[in-house]
């Protein structure tokens, strides 16, 4: 069966694809596609649980050290670019909407819209990474990279900290770089997976009966968004800002 089927609309395709194509997708150990979908969903959720523990440990590190060194952490946090951080949050939230709509139309077997919304998700993900790049460059210019570009005397003279407090500033910046880079790596992997699923969708591999890869990818993408939702106040908004 050719995946193109140019003579049929997407809705007609959706209603036809529940036969041979659906049976082809059923793995041996499952009774039906619904059970297979549930197993896949459980699998991705357990993976997301491990990711929560992965990022969670870093969040606990920020909380512990913030309580030990509040002044240094607040000063260092206020030097981060909250504008780009805030805009990136909005970008990721919008991308989450795009992928949830992709799943919505995948459930209805409307292939063209699935492809469009997956494409928009990947595009917004790329937008997030570009803004991150701009932000990282700004951090480089501002000497906020401990171990590479960092001037201890700036923090003593400009920010009024004591010399013995500077290592704690470096600690905050280290945590900032590790957490945001790790998150950016997850976004990059997410974009690759979204693009692969988009190509598979374009080739007609999914239907209203079988759209599990779209669903599973969406769950991963939403998780990446949730991590950023927590990263914003934890890293960027610890101190008070002024206009």
């Amino acid at each position, binding site marked *: 069966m050719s995946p193109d089927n140019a003579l049929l609309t997407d809705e007609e395709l959706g209603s036809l694809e529940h036969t041979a194509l659906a049976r082809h997708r059923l793995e041996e150990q499952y009774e039906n596609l619904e059970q297979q979908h*549930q197993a896949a969903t459980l699998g991705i959720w357990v993976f997301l649980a491990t990711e929560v523990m992965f990022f969670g440990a870093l969040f606990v590190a920020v909380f512990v050290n913030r*309580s030990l060194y509040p002044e240094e952490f607040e000063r260092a946090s206020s030097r981060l670019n*909250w504008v780009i951080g805030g805009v990136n949050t909005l970008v990721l939230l919008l991308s989450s*909407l795009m992928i949830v709509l992709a799943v919505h139309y995948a*459930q209805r077997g409307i292939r063209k819209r699935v492809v469009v919304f997956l494409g928009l998700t990947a595009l917004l993900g790329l937008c997030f990474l570009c803004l991150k790049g701009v932000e990282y460059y700004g951090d480089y210019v501002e000497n906020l990279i401990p171990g590479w570009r960092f001037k201890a005397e700036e923090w003593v003279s400009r920010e009024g900290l004591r010399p013995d407090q500077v290592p704690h500033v470096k600690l905050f910046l280290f945590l900032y770089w590790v957490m945001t880079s790790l998150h950016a790596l997850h976004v990059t992997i997410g974009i690759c997976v979204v693009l692969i699923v988009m190509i598979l969708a374009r080739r007609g591999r999914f239907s209203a009966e079988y759209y599990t890869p779209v669903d599973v990818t969406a769950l991963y993408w939403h998780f990446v*968004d949730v991590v950023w*939702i927590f990263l914003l106040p934890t890293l960027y908004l610890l101190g008070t800002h002024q206009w």
Partner: protein
Amino acid sequence: MNDLTERLLSPIGYVTVLVILMALTVLTVALSFVSSSAAVHVLGGQLIAAAKASLVVLFFMHVLRGSAQTRAVIVVTIFWFCLLMGLTLADYFTRGMIPNLPGH
């Protein structure tokens, strides 16, 4: 077609959730401009983040009408994360309470 699809949100519903999420984001950032104690900033920020995460999990990740298995995994994850955070913080916050003993 999957039975669940009949009960999930419409596209307009998802857009509504997004608008609420974006408003909460603006609120989080605005909170950091209020000069008050650290507790307000940190706690307020985390509470708003938790509210946003809940909206994403319940509506975008379809947990509200999802299976009991999914809810079980989420509850267990939260429990284990609270253990991680709780015990670590309990260690750090009680350091120095018992002076002059080895290991303290």
